[in-house]
């Protein structure tokens, strides 16, 4: 494979300006992450300390093999929801290494509202378990939750992807032979009781851990029975009487050590074999990505400059270099793993769509995982292109993406607008992992166009009623729309809603994809089969 020849002048003013801008963007992102991770009301921390409990990050330290990587999902989930009161959606999820095995971690964060389940907590947990299912990764649950957040119960209880889905996913995992261990470090009440209940193994801490369908107050109200927590669902009762829990532990440290030992008993996965060679650092420094990404989202840039800063040796075998040039396709190695890459270099035309569909089929045929690098304003519109069948050509690409059997990975590098989001394996298309860069944006169309379109409609309606509008009147209509659009197309909104698995510092993308790739290979890759390609 030939090395990509970067055309970028890293000492140019433009590059330096971009780099300064994007470093600031990343710094702001890091600060948001820090807040979501660490900033808690003192009384919540004091409460946990007085209960002799560890904070969730301390528990993770005890659980994970020291010095091993941790790919955290959706660290800014719920950041733009609930007035920012539920940082990280009150739980920590991710892929880490425990006793030498890659596992999905699902850990409640009792320092946020006692670990209560908000609608987005449920969404984040369900997503973590989906990741476990799709990649056949064992799960370690660190349970410490006050239960569902009752004021929002209607938004978290009954629908298909709400709380019940957590338990359904646990059962699916078990059916697939993927093991789970729960460590009960706090109360598991009502639905929460099923998390340990549905795990293959569970460990419970004497004194602080408890499992019951209804806690003492509810029992008292329902049946008049007076019973203590310990007696109703405590460690000794469950491990020696009911058999609901397996291992008693006298401290969180011991409980987590037992869980580590349990995971050490899990059989190691037979990883799917794909092409691999010794990894090689990129020839071009990944931190140059800060200067590659333009300050202005409307400004185009060559996605090969991004590829050069992600892949081994900056080497890339480009497929059809002279055809459909707005979609760059080709092979590379990332942390040694051979992957196919599709990256946008402009709007998708008929030829680029066909090229994309063809390349996706090639990757499936050869069991090569695919990385999508999105910077897409959509499929081309207009008479000429409709006549050439832009819709059916785009449909072919979407069909190929949808029916892919190989693991797919998507990175929102910059813009993701319109149906281009779909063709490039957006959230709805089951990429195993989808990450976003902090300056990226997603919406059905650009904010300006959307605001202008909406303002136009309004102006015409009012004009019909004979009303004339001043520019100020128009701005008063347009600006709120623009503001709302801008807010909801920002990566922070997307990630708060979990349209992705988390925002990444661009310089970290290579590592994140490496772990994602490794994790994805715990599941076998099926043979490709597609629906009808409209010819």
């Amino acid at each position, binding site marked *: 494979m030939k090395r990509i020849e970067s055309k970028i002048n890293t000492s140019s003013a433009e590059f330096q300006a971009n780099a300064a801008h994007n470093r600031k963007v990343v710094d702001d992102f890091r600060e948001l*992450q820090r807040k979501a991770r660490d900033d808690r009301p003192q009384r919540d921390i004091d409460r946990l300390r007085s209960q002799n409990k560890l904070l969730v990050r301390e528990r993770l330290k005890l659980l994970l093999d020291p010095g091993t990587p941790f790919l955290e999902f959706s660290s800014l989930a719920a950041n733009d929801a609930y007035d920012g009161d539920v940082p990280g959606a009150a739980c920590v999820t*991710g892929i880490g290494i425990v006793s030498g095995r890659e596992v999905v971690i699902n850990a409640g964060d009792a320092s946020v509202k006692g670990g209560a389940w908000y609608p987005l907590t449920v969404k984040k947990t369900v997503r973590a378990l989906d990741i476990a299912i799709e990649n056949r990764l064992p799960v370690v649950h660190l349970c410490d939750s006050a239960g569902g957040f009752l004021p929002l119960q209607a938004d978290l209880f009954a629908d298909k992807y709400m709380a019940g889905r957590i338990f359904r996913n646990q059962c699916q995992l078990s059916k697939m032979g993927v093991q789970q261990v729960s460590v009960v470090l706090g109360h598991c009440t009502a639905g929460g009781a099923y998390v340990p209940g549905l795990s293959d193994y569970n460990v419970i801490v004497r004194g602080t851990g408890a499992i019951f369908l209804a806690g003492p107050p509810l029992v008292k109200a329902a049946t008049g029975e007076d019973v203590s927590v310990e007696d109703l669902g405590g460690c000794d009762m469950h491990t020696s009487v009911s058999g609901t829990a397996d291992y008693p532990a006298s401290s969180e440290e011991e409980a987590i050590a037992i869980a580590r030992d349990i995971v050490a008993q899990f059989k190691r996965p037979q990883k799917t074999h794909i092409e691999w060679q010794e990894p090689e650092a990129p020839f071009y420094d990944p931190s140059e990505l800060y200067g590659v990404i333009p300050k202005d989202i409307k400004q185009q840039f060559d996605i090969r400059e991004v590829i050069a800063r992600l892949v081994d040796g900056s080497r890339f075998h480009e497929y059809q270099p002279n055809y459909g040039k707005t979609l760059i396709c080709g092979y590379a190695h990332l942390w040694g793993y051979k992957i196919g890459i599709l990256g946008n270099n402009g709007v998708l035309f008929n030829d680029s769509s066909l090229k994309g569909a063809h390349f996706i089929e090639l990757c499936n045929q050869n069991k090569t995982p695919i990385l999508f690098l999105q910077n897409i304003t959509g499929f081309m519109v207009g008479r000429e292109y409709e006549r050439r069948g832009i819709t059916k050509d785009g449909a072919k690409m979407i069909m190929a993406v949808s029916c892919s059997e190989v693991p797919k990975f998507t990175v929102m590098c910059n813009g993701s607008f319109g149906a281009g989001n779909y063709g490039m394996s957006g959230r709805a298309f089951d990429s195993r992992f989808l990450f976003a860069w902090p300056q990226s944006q997603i919406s059905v169309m650009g904010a300006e166009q959307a605001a202008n379109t909406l303002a136009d409609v309004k102006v015409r309606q009012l004009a019909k009623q004979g009303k004339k509008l001043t520019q100020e009147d128009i701005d008063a209509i347009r600006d709120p729309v623009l503001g709302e659009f801008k807010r909801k197309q920002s990566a922070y909104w997307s990630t708060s809603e979990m349209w992705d698995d988390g925002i990444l510092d661009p310089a970290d993308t290579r590592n994140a994809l490496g772990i994602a790739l490794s994790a994805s290979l715990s599941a076998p890759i099926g043979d490709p089969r597609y629906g009808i390609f409209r010819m």
Partner: protein
Amino acid sequence: MMSKRFTKVLVANRGEIAVRVIRGAKKAGYQTVAVYSDADKDSMHVLEADEAVRIGPSPAKDSYLLIENILAAAKLSGAQAIHPGYGFLSEREAFAKAVQDAGLIFIGPDPHSIEAMGNKSASKIRMIAANVPCVPGYQGDDQADETLVAESKKAGLPVMVKAAAGGGGRGMRLVYEANELLANIQSARSEATNAFGSGQLLIEKAVMDARHVEIQIFGDRHGNVIHFGERDCSVQRRNQKVVEEAPSPAVDEALRVKMGAAAVAAAKAVNYVGAGTVEFMLARDGQFYFLEMNTRLQVEHPVTELVYGVDLVEWQLRVAQGEPLPLTQEQVSAKRKGWAIEVRLCAEDPRDNYMPQTGPVLSWSAPQGDGVRVDTYLTTGATISPFYDSMQAKVIAWGEDRETARTRLLKALEQTSFLGVVNNKDYLSAILANEAFASGDFSTAFIGKYFPQEQVSAAKPSSRHVALAVVALYLDDAQKLAEENNLSSEFIGWHSSHEAPAEFKLKWRDQEYDLEVLVHDGHQFSIEIAGSKIEINVARSLPHEFHYIVEGVQGKAVIAHHGDAVWLTAEGTTHCYTDTSLAPAQAVAAGADGRILANSDGKIVAVHVEAGQKVEKGTTLVVLEAMKMEFQLTTPVSGVIETVSVKAGDQVKGRQLLVQVKPDA
């Protein structure tokens, strides 16, 4: 004569000396036979010999010390000659005799020479007769005070007044002044009487600040005896030689001639044949006194070989064949060139009173280079068993002068990798680096003076060393992770959401270290230990070593990782740490929360405590009868009884709370 030549040699020993002799014999064209105990079945001497015979179980008394087994092995293999090495049976008159009686050649002196030198008092009398200088003194039966005082003055002050039956320093007095003699003799006598039931005393001239200097001699069956100059073995601890050298810094040519002549006279007095060593005390005034004669090849013979350019094992074989000595005294003396120093690398813990150490050798790598010689049987993966001597290797360096030999040896030790079993390598380096040693001006008091036990025991690893151990652990984990998951080691420590220092706990002996480790790009380590921060950049990471840069200087660390143990050699020291980072928290025994529950349904037979009473861990609180058995229910914690919920005669349910103890904080 030719028909009597032997061609097959059995080496009745093990370890480095067996390897040394086997190699020497093979080089001289002999067939070689090793003997081995069960513990040594895969040992290097077995692998190097042409044939090998098992002689018994691991303990030496059941194998290497059994004369009949060795003779049986010789018979079985058809060996015609036996080399005893050193130690074991080498100085047993009975062994030499048994070998000769079996019609085999004993590669060493005749039994009568061994016998003559084996008895200390008898040998001293012979030596005095042969005009070999011995420590002056008095060992007569006349125990009158005035006789003892007179004999003391005759021997020359200072003198040692010793209990004839004594030992362990009791009844022993060092007397410098004539007017103190009487008082000391009387108090020594009374102490000896009390301690040993005999007040008999003897007088010996005290040789202050003496050196241990010995002469290598060689004799043949044609009446020739020559010497190979001296070796200085003054660096000793508790009469164990630690460092040996040739020549001695305290011996000049005139003294060498004098001591050589005395040693040759000593050997001739007992018709000595083969290699032997005559040991002397050398006083500061140049006087020397016979100590004893070792009738075998010495551990420290290589320094003589390097300085004289001879192979003493080859000489032993020639003499055993009946050949005359290959060289004359003049020829040998003319060959003397340069200086050689040897250290004894032992599996022992200098910090813990030199306690012998055993276990698997995780990493052994001998140094190489000009003038460096290593005699050993160690290999990586070998196990050091508890059955034999703790000496594992001899590292020897030769140089044109003493300083070259010393610095070469220091360098060679630095390049020696010996991990897995605690050993004295760093201790030996410290001795070689010591100024008094470098100056050559020292005596047998050297170690006591410069390396007192308290000082040796107090040495601790530096923070930087501990930090490097954590880096080693980290890199090793990374390596394993990378291998298991086909991941690059640069992944280690990477967190997608934030930098998270990993916490490590290391234990060095009883000392616990808590470390926080932050890694950038898999090689830039920021380590916090005991409140200070150490920045370590790993320049290169190889399977068993890594190169690191601290404060601008690149260094090298050699590592071995076995289970929870991490061995690290860096900055001139080796330490073993235990990784306790993930050691499971101690599981607390049932009832550790102070809740003493009934172990089953049953009847309370007795209650031994009441509320408010203080109880120790293990105290029986309640006796419960069930299934015709009585169970003593004890408390697993110390504390104060809070409540007692039952009394004798009560029927209780299993897991019912009987006694609540408030555990001590």
